[in-house]
């Protein structure tokens, strides 16, 4: 389903051009909509604090670039620690979500079993439960178990939040890999596990990578669960949240900028790899 509109007739060329123009217009609008706030946060974070505070309206191209604001943010107490904590929580969440979610997704995609639809519904319903309601019991349980204020504790919570997405995304990924490919591998001498490892897994990899990144981003973006479950050792969003009301606006720009970078960079690099692999898949 790449954007080749086939009309077959000569007048089709005009229609194709109109179609392409429309595509670009829509794509550009969407890109601007998403990128504009990111851009303003970025330039605000990169202009010297005095100017960033006083200048209005904002210039599109900053007259002066300085890293003072960012340095100030990074040198604030506990920010670097919180940053690395967030990274680790994200990684552990990613590993746990995929380790549990991918097999579940595979089962939903490949097997017919009793209560499959109910299971699918239950998976989603966990998201229907607002974390706010769970906040107190959760905190109490965590303290009782002694995993409050710890990386593993937050990771477990984030895994619970990300798991429904991990399951549903991976199941749709596995559905897109034709079952006949695995069967063909089995007739060619593969054990079902080998067939999965040699055929389905490589073909599902781009989708699985996307699911992985998505769970990482879910974890990275989470403020609420992290602020409930941590106090002295917060993740980056929780750390930023606690000082939000007392800090200068430039501090907030820097915080927003630093929080944005990893998501943007990761997705930017992975995206090329995703397209590269997907391009080779037939159908």
């Amino acid at each position, binding site marked *: 389903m790449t954007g080749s509109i086939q009309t077959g007739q000569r007048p089709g060329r005009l229609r194709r051009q109109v179609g392409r123009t429309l595509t670009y217009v829509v794509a550009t609008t969407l890109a601007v909509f998403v990128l504009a706030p990111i851009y303003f946060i970025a330039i605000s974070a990169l202009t010297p604090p005095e100017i960033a505070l006083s200048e209005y309206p904002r210039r599109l191209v900053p007259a002066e670039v300085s890293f003072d604001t960012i340095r100030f943010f990074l040198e604030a107490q506990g920010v670097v620690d919180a940053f690395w904590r967030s990274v680790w929580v994200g990684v552990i969440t990613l590993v746990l979500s995929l380790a549990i979610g991918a097999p579940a997704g595979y089962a939903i995609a490949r097997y017919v079993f009793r209560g499959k639809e109910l299971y699918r519904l239950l998976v989603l319903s966990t998201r229907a439960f607002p974390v706010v309601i769970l906040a107190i019991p959760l905190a109490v349980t965590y303290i009782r178990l002694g995993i409050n204020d710890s990386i593993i504790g937050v990771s477990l919570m984030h895994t619970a939040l990300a798991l429904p997405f991990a399951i549903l995304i991976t199941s749709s990924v596995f559905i897109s890999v*034709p079952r006949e490919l695995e069967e063909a591998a089995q007739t060619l001498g593969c054990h079902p596990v080998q067939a999965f490892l040699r055929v389905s897994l490589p073909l599902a990899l781009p989708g699985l990578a996307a699911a992985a990144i998505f769970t990482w981003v879910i974890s990275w973006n989470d403020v609420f669960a992290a602020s409930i479950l941590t106090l002295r050792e917060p993740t980056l969003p929780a750390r930023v949240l606690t000082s939000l009301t007392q800090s200068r606006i430039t501090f907030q720009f820097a915080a927003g900028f630093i929080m944005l970078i990893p998501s943007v960079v990761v997705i930017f690099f992975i995206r090329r790899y995703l397209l590269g692999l997907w391009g080779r898949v037939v159908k």
Partner: protein
Amino acid sequence: MAEIRLEGVTKLFKQVRAVDDVSLTISEGEFMVLLGPSGCGKTTLLRSVAGLEQIDAGRVLIGGRDVTYLPPRKRNIAMVFQSYAVFPHMTVFDNIAFGLRMRKASRAEIRRRVQEAAELLHIEGLLDRYPSQTSGGQRQRIAVARALAMQPQVLLMDEPLSNLDALLRLEARAELKRLLSEIGSTTIYVTHDQVEAMSMGDRVAVMRAGKLVQVDEPLAIYDRPADRFVGGFIGNPPMNFLPVTVSQRDGAAVATVADAGEVRVDARDGLAGRSGPLLLGIRAENIEIAPLRGGEALHGRVLVVEPLGSHNLVTLRVGGELLKAITRPDEHLDPDQEVAITIDSERIRWLDARSEVALAHDVHAGPGAGMGGVTSAELEGAGDQVERSLE
């Protein structure tokens, strides 16, 4: 190369009997076609032989070995899928080499066998490409090459030509037939295309609703269908079926078509002493039409004449029934013309009027019976189950 023996194979999907007590023996090197309308269970039967379906009753033997409970990888089979199932993330070379690598064949051996298989199918120029860089016809060849490289005891093919366009399919059909006869492996080939079945198979097994209806050589099935379903499914146009009433006159049987006249009954047809309704089956090419001169036994009226180049297809109304006949292209007939109809009494197939199953006595042991010592279909009771008695 090995014999395949199916004994009472049954496969259920929930309450549906997808394959219902199928017994069939395919001898070494034979090309057996499973033919039937979609949903008749032919693909399920093939997958049961492959081991991709666990059967609910019966046994599957390959080369005398009971493989009923063995997984596909231990059955020494190779399969070509309808969708080809070519691995998109591997080059054509790696696709063909896949099975050999699983067997831990040596590098040199793999290289040689892949090359051989590729040359057989004329795709040696594509080995470095990815499947997405090949056409549908080429992918079909890759799938066949991948199967042949395994040198399997049994080759299973599931509608391998159905995804090709008409012209390519014609070409691929002839080529596949030549290729498989050269290799001489035992083959089961599933198709819903009766022309494919007729033109390729050593024998054809016709399936309907999970059961085998008839197993025989293509021509025998064409000439002597086991029942109305087979006669109607095979051949284009399908076989004609006329309801007749048989009676005895002067010690000989006569078949009467209501409001249209009589048909001469061959004395060897065993209808002597019989009376009552029957179905008369006759192929379009075994009907002759001539202008009506009066005094003819059977007459009818021309409805439509369709000139098809090599022959004309004529639709006639005979009594209350429609009949399709084939005439020479130069024979001139007008719509609404009354004509005399001559039915070749040696080519008539008599069927029971109620069960629509062919009468058991088949005296027209035509040319088919001489080929390879294959006995013709034998009917069991009034049901439509036909079993082949082999050797």
